[in-house]
């Protein structure tokens, strides 16, 4: 049995994903995409806040950071679209108004759950740790808490 060698394209021999274009600037979404992506991140935040555990609230922070990133991209994206004559102000106004409404709802969910826990923590602290001399609930002490410093 004979073996035939076929010619292979030359490669650098480096394995793993291609890094071609790694130093290119990220693609700037169109203005309507910025709003849509911010809306999708807000929807995730809303879903997380419907069941606001500590982990969910932290995840919510990530989602809100994404919203912030998308909103930061918007002015540049709008400027670029206007230069190219592609910006539809009426559509953007409608989308922005809807996004604002979504943000209001998510903010209410955030504040409601935050108030709930703040009030519950006060009640719980008083029940667990008593009151300070000034009559305020004592600071909640957590026996499971590890503090790493340095």
């Amino acid at each position, binding site marked *: 049995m004979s073996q035939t060698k076929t010619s292979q394209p030359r490669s650098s021999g480096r394995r793993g994903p291609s890094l071609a274009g790694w130093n290119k600037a990220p693609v700037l979404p169109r203005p309507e995409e910025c709003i849509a992506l911010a809306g999708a991140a807000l929807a995730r935040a809303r879903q997380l806040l419907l069941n606001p555990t500590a982990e969910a609230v932290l995840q919510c922070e990530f989602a809100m950071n994404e919203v912030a990133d998308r909103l930061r991209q918007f002015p540049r994206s709008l400027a670029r679209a206007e230069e190219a004559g592609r910006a539809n102000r009426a559509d953007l106004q409608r989308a922005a108004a809807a996004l604002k409404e979504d943000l209001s709802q998510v903010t209410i969910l955030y504040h409601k759950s935050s108030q709930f826990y703040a009030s*519950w923590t006060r009640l719980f602290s008083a029940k667990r740790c008593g009151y300070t001399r000034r009559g305020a609930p004592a600071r909640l002490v957590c026996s499971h808490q590890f503090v790493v410093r340095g």
Partner: protein
Amino acid sequence: MSSLLAALQNSANALDTFEKQIGVTQDNVINASTPGYVKQQLDVSAVGFQPSAGLYGGVQSGQIENARSEFAETAVQNEQMQDGFLSERANTLQNIQSAFDITGDSGLSKGINDLFSAFSSWSEAPTDITQQQGVINAAQAFVTNANQTAAELNLNAASVKQEIGVQISAINQLALQIARINQSDQSNPAAAASNNSTLYSDLEQLSQSVNFTTVKASDGTTTVLLDGQIPLVIGSKSYPLSLSMVAAGTNNSPAAPQILDAGGNNITSQVTNGKLGGLLSVANGELATLLGDGTQNGSLNNLITNIATAVNNLLQKGQIDQAGTPGVALFQVTNDASAAATLQLNPACVASQLAAIDPGPPMVSNGIANQLSALANNTTTMFGNQSFVQYYGSMASAVGGAAGNAATAKTNSDQLLAQARSLRTQISGVSLDDEAASLVGLQQAYEATSKVFTTVNQLMEDLLNAVR
């Protein structure tokens, strides 16, 4: 010997404690799917070890702590009240909205437009019998539309009244059940903990219907106060509400629903939330604004009275022929809260008796018909400088706006209710140590997220300014 007694005492305490723990676990397993039940846990505490002072260590059970916090229950109840309020407002306002058509294709708006179109056509051929008959036909259609709109709104008012009665029955039934639970707690305090799930379930249902607060009495019973003041339940006694329909004025306005407490006092203004609050807000708000109450005739009736009176005044000012035969009124209309429902054509006015001639001077053969046609665009200060058609449009859009706002607010409220239920589950059935750790973690998570929310809200304002 004393050490043997101490050991026995210690073991007895421990056995008693474990027995109680097993009991609590069994309750949790058995009741896992019982509505309103939350996991209960035994509060176990260490006994100090100081034999000289008679303390031999070990564990003892404290009171069984119901993990369900009054706090979490109250949060759910408050959201439930708001949700009930908004759901009734959204439903009833949507039904009322359907009585209005602002497209001009049907209903009263079409009736008004067609009437003025008929006057316009008639003004071009005032002696043409076909055009005259066209005016009579349009006037009859306008009458029918006004009557139908009033009938639809009155039907809505009747439906709201009926639903108010249903809610009052539900409230009274739940108050009675809670009073029975209180009675059971009084006669058997040991059963109080196991009654809690039924009590909380009843209170949650009650919060759908009406606003209330609860107070734990010293005997362990739950006092329920409507709006924090009016007794619904005290101890083993419930205080039923009742509905009274009161004719509020002399202007033929529909009777207004009033809620009376067990002593017969009018407490309507204190019912501000829950389904009952939502129904009352529509009955005494939007419906009263449209159909009238003791202090006003209602916007629908004002509109009908003004159109019919303006038409009648012009026709009666005119004359039918050159001989000076005076014109007759086209409509029979009242100036009260029954105007739309009772409007009818004047049987004495037939097509040939329509007065098109303005006697002047100078006499104009179609002068009155022209003025009737122009009424369509006349504005009156009474209607905020709007024409009749514009006033109808603003009336309809006010109802539509209120219905839309209620629907949006209901969607938000649904989410807040779901969140409150989830929060209740989270703080129920957690050990005290776990709870402390969890709350410290949450505090940190919220502090971190708070900054992002502030940033995002600022960026959102920037975005809105950018697209303006």
